[in-house]
């Protein structure tokens, strides 16, 4: 990375400062997650005892000791967080398997879904945004604006349900996810439908952003210069305008990538896809706190890291941005 306008020393100081803030944020969110899951009425042992009808207090104390929830809260927190950073996440209450194994098992599907959804987001959002801006205030612009606004208005789980319904009435079947697809194309085809349901929303966002960024850029003097020197319309729109307009889009795309998990939670639930997002809801419902706690913490780590990466990328792409805060 050659950045003649930025001194190396300032970059170093910036990195140190940003990393410290990142750790502080992660510490804060870990405390919030930990405290929230401790104030939930009724701990797992109470629930076990209620459902099993056991009353022996000695048994109860033994189970609490086994699970480590008889320790004082700060100590419990310390045990958890040191385990989190050393990869020792404990055991699921429900399946009694290692939390790491349970979560790792479900990551690939969610990751594939997220990548496909991002693909839809960019492949639909950017070109349509450009068309909408270049043809500002025409019928096509109005149509695209209404479509993108409806994309932001449809709950993604409803869109998913509608798609399922269409499958049922047209093909008489529901595309059921299997973890042993015949080929990679089969798998992509299976995942494409839920990915499109999730991606529609973020593509609408990207489209609106691309449109307004393009309109902003198209008003600039250097675009007039490019037109005056006789550059073709496509050259002006794509080489001169789009490249500059994409900057804010890249930022939002990065943040959206991390926030896709919100859409995936409901979509995985509707399509019965065994990914981490659906797993989080299942764990919350069954009060499987080791899973909830670690999974939410992992999401926070991903979000914070992505934000950091986007900031760095932004500073690299835009020479006007300096490493001060």
């Amino acid at each position, binding site marked *: 990375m050659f950045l003649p306008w930025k001194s190396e020393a300032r970059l170093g100081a910036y990195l140190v400062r940003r990393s410290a803030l990142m750790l502080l944020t992660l510490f804060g969110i870990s405390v919030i997650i930990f405290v929230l899951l401790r104030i939930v009425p009724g701990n797992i042992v109470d629930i076990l005892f209620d459902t099993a009808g056991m009353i022996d207090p000695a048994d109860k104390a033994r189970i609490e000791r086994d699970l480590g929830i008889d320790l004082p809260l700060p100590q419990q927190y310390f045990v958890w967080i040191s385990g989190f950073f050393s990869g020792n996440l404990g055991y699921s209450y429900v399946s009694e398997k290692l939390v790491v194994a349970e979560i790792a098992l479900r990551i690939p599907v969610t990751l594939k879904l997220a990548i496909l959804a991002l693909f839809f987001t960019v492949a639909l959002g950017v070109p349509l945004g450009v068309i909408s801006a270049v043809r500002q205030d025409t019928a096509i612009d109005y149509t695209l604006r209404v479509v993108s*606004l409806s994309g932001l208005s449809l*709950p993604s789980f409803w869109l998913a349900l509608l798609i399922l319904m269409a499958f049922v009435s047209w093909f008489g079947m529901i595309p059921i996810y299997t973890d042993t697809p015949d080929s990679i194309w089969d798998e992509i085809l299976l995942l494409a439908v839920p990915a499109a349901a999730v991606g529609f929303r973020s593509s609408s966002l990207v489209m609106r952003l691309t449109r307004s960024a393009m309109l902003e850029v198209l008003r600039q003097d250097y675009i007039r210069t490019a037109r005056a020197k006789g550059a073709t319309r496509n050259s002006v729109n794509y080489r001169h305008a789009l490249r500059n307009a994409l900057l804010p889009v890249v930022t939002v795309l990065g943040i959206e990538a991390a926030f896709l998990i919100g859409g995936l939670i409901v979509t995985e639930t509707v399509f019965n896809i065994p990914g981490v997002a659906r797993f989080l809801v299942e764990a919350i419902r069954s009060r499987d706190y080791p899973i909830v706690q670690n999974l939410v913490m992992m999401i926070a780590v991903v979000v914070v890291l992505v934000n950091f990466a986007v900031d760095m990328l932004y500073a690299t792409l835009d020479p006007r941005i300096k490493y001060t805060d």
Partner: protein
Amino acid sequence: MSSPSYESELVRAGARAEGLFGRSVHFVRLYPLGAAGAVIMTVFVLAAVFAELITANGPLATNASRSLAAPGADYWLGADVMGRDLYSRIVYGARISLAVGIGSTVLGCLLGVVIGLASGYLGGWFDLVTQRIMDILQALPLLVLALVFAAALGPSLQNTIIAISIPLIPTVARVIRSNTLALREQAFVEAANAIGMSEWRIAARHILPNTVAPLIVLATAQFAAAILTEASLSFLGLGIPEPHPSWGRMLSESAAEYMRRAPWLVIFPGLAISLVVFGINLLGDALRDMLDPRQRG
């Protein structure tokens, strides 16, 4: 600026619009989509307020013989598996949806404004601490944070409002803070300082009114997000509990189960959510163009 189009420019800019009616006509002409959004919102608000008057059956009244009845003369939008009138449930559901939407938006904006104003105006360590807390709240996607709060607080109407309002705070606080920082340097604030106004009075009387425009724009976006989040939470079974008719809840598994036999159970509640949010978004876009010309696209 004495071009021939000066008068028509003035009319376009609304300078000649007088009275509530004149202003409304001006708004409709300039922002037809925004006006459509306002109409949609008005219909839903009226439906929520006058739910008793426009429905024949109670939203909770069951009728086993009419289980999964198709849309018809008695049940306009059909009935669910327990024979409850879907139309009444959707009309009453508007109450829940709007209550949660308005409740959490007002709560989130109120807290966000207080935090942002104090943070921007006081600066110093208070600013530093609150900004870090806002960082922390923004480290999780809206739905995930709302899910964790909803799970911790337990399912109820009030708890759902609280759970959704908390993730809304940081965005509001950030916008108000940056506006406050810019306003603090303005001459009129210096003037107020010079004549010996107290800090709080300046913040409340001179800074706050100047942040109203961006706040309104932001609040409409938050309102839409709050309604969608409530629908998602209830859909996942962690939001509004039974027997309240929540649109999101109506769509959860039971609806999915009967989608082959009773597609209306899937279509209408989702349509209600989408229409309300679409109306808010249309209105929000128009308000943004009107109040915040710098962001006009």
